[in-house]
């Protein structure tokens, strides 16, 4: 079954036409990378998938997006339910000013879970999946702000995993991090795809080719090419793609 299925999506910021007729499908437990020059609409499309763009005034969308077969823009859809299913990790780590433990527990608590032993178990599991457990297990009651940038980003990943989403959206999750933290996050993505479907926006070509199964190349609001990552990087069909991945522009 397809996890994500976008059909003829057009998106506008007021009168600016940011995405033009995008259709794209993502299979379960795959990693898809979105690449393309700055301002081409990668983040915009990513934020369509968990309806984060709803928060911006004056935006408008046409077309349809199905997640696990359900139209997420149908009138009866509850956005908070959707976002439980489609988690997101942002470019800049944004932990809450709470303890490490409470950062992870937050998503469970706001979704009505009160069982403390379950919460403790989920906190541990999520921190382990995010490869952060060993570094923080002795300071769960310390402020999340005391962690390094790379640790904070993995905390945010753990936070997203704690509520067991189906899809995890990552918008340049490693762009603010050093090479070692970046490598850790890439390893992590590789591990995570056993359990999750992942879509990652990145400006780093090596990263895209290392972590993803498929790659989508966007340019000026259009989806130019979408194919297996190996194919995109070795034998792209469009000249624009070729130019971008070889660094001739962008």
């Amino acid at each position, binding site marked *: 079954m397809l996890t994500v299925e976008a059909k003829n999506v057009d998106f506008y910021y007021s009168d600016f036409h940011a995405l033009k007729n995008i259709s794209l499908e993502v299979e379960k437990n795959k990693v898809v990378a979105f690449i393309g020059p700055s301002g081409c609409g990668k983040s915009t499309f990513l934020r369509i998938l968990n309806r984060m763009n709803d928060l911006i005034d004056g935006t408008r969308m046409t077309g349809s997006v199905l997640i696990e077969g359900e139209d997420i823009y149908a009138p009866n859809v509850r956005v908070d339910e959707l976002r439980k299913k489609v988690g997101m990790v942002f470019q800049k780590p944004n932990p809450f000013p709470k303890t490490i433990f*409470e950062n992870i527990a937050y998503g469970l608590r706001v979704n009505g879970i009160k069982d403390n032993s379950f919460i403790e178990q989920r906190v541990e599991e999520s921190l382990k999946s995010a490869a952060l457990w060993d570094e923080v297990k002795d300071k769960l009651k310390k402020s999340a702000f005391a962690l390094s940038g790379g640790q904070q980003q993995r905390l945010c990943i753990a936070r997203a995993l704690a509520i067991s989403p189906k899809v995890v959206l990552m918008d340049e999750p490693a762009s603010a991090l050093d090479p070692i933290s970046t490598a850790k996050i890439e390893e992590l993505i590789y591990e995570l795809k056993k359990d999750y479907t992942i879509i990652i926006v990145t400006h780093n070509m090596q990263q895209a080719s290392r972590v993803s199964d498929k790659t989508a190349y966007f340019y000026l609001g259009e989806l130019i090419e979408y194919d297996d990552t190996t194919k995109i990087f070795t034998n792209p069909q469009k000249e624009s793609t070729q130019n971008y991945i070889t660094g001739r522009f962008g």
Partner: protein
Amino acid sequence: MTPLDKTSKIDKRKRRSQFIAFTLFKLMSYSVVAMLILILGFITTKGIGVINWEFLTTAPQEGMTKGGIYPAIIGTLVLVLGSSLFSFPIGIMSGIYMNEYATNSKLAAFIRVMTNNLSGVPSVVFGLFGMALFVNTMGFGDSILAGSLTLGLLSLPLVIRTTEESLKAIDFSFREGSLALGATKLQTIRKVILPMAFPNIITGLILSIGRVSGETAPILFTVAAYFLPKLPHSIFDQVMALPYHLYVISTSGTDIEASRGIAYGTALVLIAIVLIVNLLANFLRTFFSKRVKMN
């Protein structure tokens, strides 16, 4: 020789103007401190003589030329409390609504303009309005209730503003982070945004208390008693209040010369209350900002 090689003269000039500017800034800020110390020193030296336990705990006697200011202290505290009960909930909730729910709406813009205008209205106008509405139309009479509502109205713009500004200062990424986890807007505000904004909101609230406790005009026609040596029993009673008492014994007491000392003593108590409130604000602010980071 390019122009860049000849910059040493320009460098000298740059440094000189920088030196002059900073010296000027420094002098100005020192003079502000000096004026403040002057005022405090003046009031303290004049007023400290009459301050003792009796002055703080007994009622005025012999045409307010002797005795203490106990009823006025209590009256001011009661009015501060009463106006806060009114303005804090309304102000905080409006602030939240304006920043979190109706950010760009016409209604929010309208409320914003109105509150800005309201905060520029002279306080005596509030007094007049409070008299017309609360004392007469609603029939509360000269009472704690009418005075509290009038003072509450006066401080409402400040409470709304600080709430709104404190919320605005919280980076949008925290809201996104919370919403992306399936939290509702209300949960996001309650569990993430408000705790973060709280230290700043508290500061605003306490500053508004400082303002309320020092106002004379709004209570003049709504609650303040010229001379009332007993404590209030209900919210429909009148009270004395420090700022008004100060005004009365300095301008229209039975014997202004004889009550001069008491006037300075009253001023000192009033300043002390405002000062304590401000220190409390600072303390709560640091306390809550530490707590926010911790949990």
